[in-house]
């Protein structure tokens, strides 16, 4: 590949991949908000119910 094409391609691919991973990682590591939140999956989690005094 010619140098300018290689530079543009690599910078773009690494930047887009890096930013995508960074934001998804932020989503994964951010703790959920207290109940009632928007999501069903943790509604029956005893710890969260206890934290919120819903027992």
């Amino acid at each position, binding site marked *: 590949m010619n140098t300018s*094409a290689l530079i543009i391609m690599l910078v773009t691919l690494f930047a887009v991949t890096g930013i995508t991973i960074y934001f998804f990682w*932020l989503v994964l590591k951010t703790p959920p908000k207290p109940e009632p939140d*928007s999501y069903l999956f943790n509604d029956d989690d005893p710890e969260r119910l206890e934290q919120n005094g819903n027992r």
Partner: protein
Amino acid sequence: MSANKESWGSRVGLILAMAGNAVGLGNFLRFPVQAVQNGGGAFIIPYLVCFLVMGIPLLWIEWSMGRFGGKFGHHSTPFILDTMDKRRFWKYIGVFGVWTNIAVAAYYCYLESWTLSYMMHSILGSFNGLDQNGVAEFFNHYVDLDTSTTGIPYEPIVFFVICLLLNTWILSKGLAAGVERVAKIGMPLLILFGAFLAYKGFTVTAGEQGAINDSSVGLNFLWTPNYDQLWSPSVWLAAAGQIFFTLSVGMGTVHCYASYVRSKDDIALNAMSAGWMNEFVEVVLGGAIIIPISIGYLGIDRVTELVQLGGLGLGFKTLPYLFAQWGPALSAIAGVMWFGLLFFAGITSSLAMGTPWMGFLQDEFNWRRKSAAWSFGLIVFLLGMPTVLFFNYGVFDEYDYWAGTVSLVVFALLESILFAWVFGMDKGWREITSGADIKVPGIYKFIIKYVTPLLLLWVFVGSLVTPKGGDWGAALSGNWVLDDSSIIKKLMNSSLKQQLAAATDPAQIAQLEDTLFFVNASRILLAAVFVGIALLVYVAYKKRVREGKI
């Protein structure tokens, strides 16, 4: 009381569903073609700039509008927009957010059904032994409905119905158990299939398995910057247009999905994560498959010709032939992966298109989820059949142009004005930042208020009065001749009429006259559907007044 008790299962599920909504066939078929036609590697600069100043702001606008409307129990744009200003006409602007989805789903499900059928043909080895013209003819016969490629009579209709039934059945399962579950399976598989094909795209070697070029030739072709093109307004217009279509903004689906998020939960980070995931699929995977593989086997001149026919031609008429060069086993695997990837990209988008209509019926008329889902399936079937039966008469393209292109720009322009100037930027900013898990840069307050609406206005005006050959220099110096691709010329059917005037062969004249008829008929049909939904919104409004809700 509304029958709508939908909820998302998990935050990751919501983000994958939202990313799935954005990731569509255009990520793999449209983006590389646009990049090649608009300056190669230099296209990425306007493309990413437009993503930052138009794409991200629109995502934040739509997520926050949706969450705001959801607080009042609204899950479709007519009444989401209605809550944002006291003037009553906004709910009729919101009709775009239901109509676009129904009209786009009508032809998109047909396109999606091709991928199902082509997956089956890849397994059956239908493309083995065919030359490139044979593969192209296979596609032409498929959409002609005149020849059955499998012995199944009216095969495209059968696959269209299967695809619609599948969509409807998943929608009837609801958000968490239907849409979200498909996104959680489909998105990782799509990325896996894409990564495999991208690897093949990066490793094409001249002289092996019939390849005439190394992958570097195709990658050079795609990524070598032509900086002169950076000053062309047409390139910027193309970049802005691509950002628009790839993010599925201006459709009403983002509003609908976000309306099920509670006001204390984050939308700013969710929007960024889903938006960048779409960019990853488009730029990293989409850019590494179709162009490098095609050029590896066909050469630059042939692919330049094929690119003029658009991504569909490359995706369905060329790639199956190229996969066949890899031997029966690998060609079947590659075919299943390519069309499987397109299928998952398609279905996660078409499912999103069903939700605004369902939300509207559930909110306003207390329909149950299942009835709402099946009504969507029925309407899409009735509206989609003309695209199947009269594909060769331009009906498919007409739906795509008006519902899948023009309508998005119009609605996004109007919603950005509503959000920033009518609802107010201060209130809007509070909506975006409320519950945010990231710090939203303050510059976006300025961008959302001024840059995004102006850019959208420019995209709209640029499409309305596109100068001939995209020559803005000549146009601005006083010689403004409209291009046949401009909205005004399209509306006047200029291109078709010119072809008709130049035609001498009676069969060709008859074909063009039929095309003109079907083009006009499909516009009337689409307009009638819009009016029908607007009437339903009026009925729903009157019902609300009667019930004392307004």
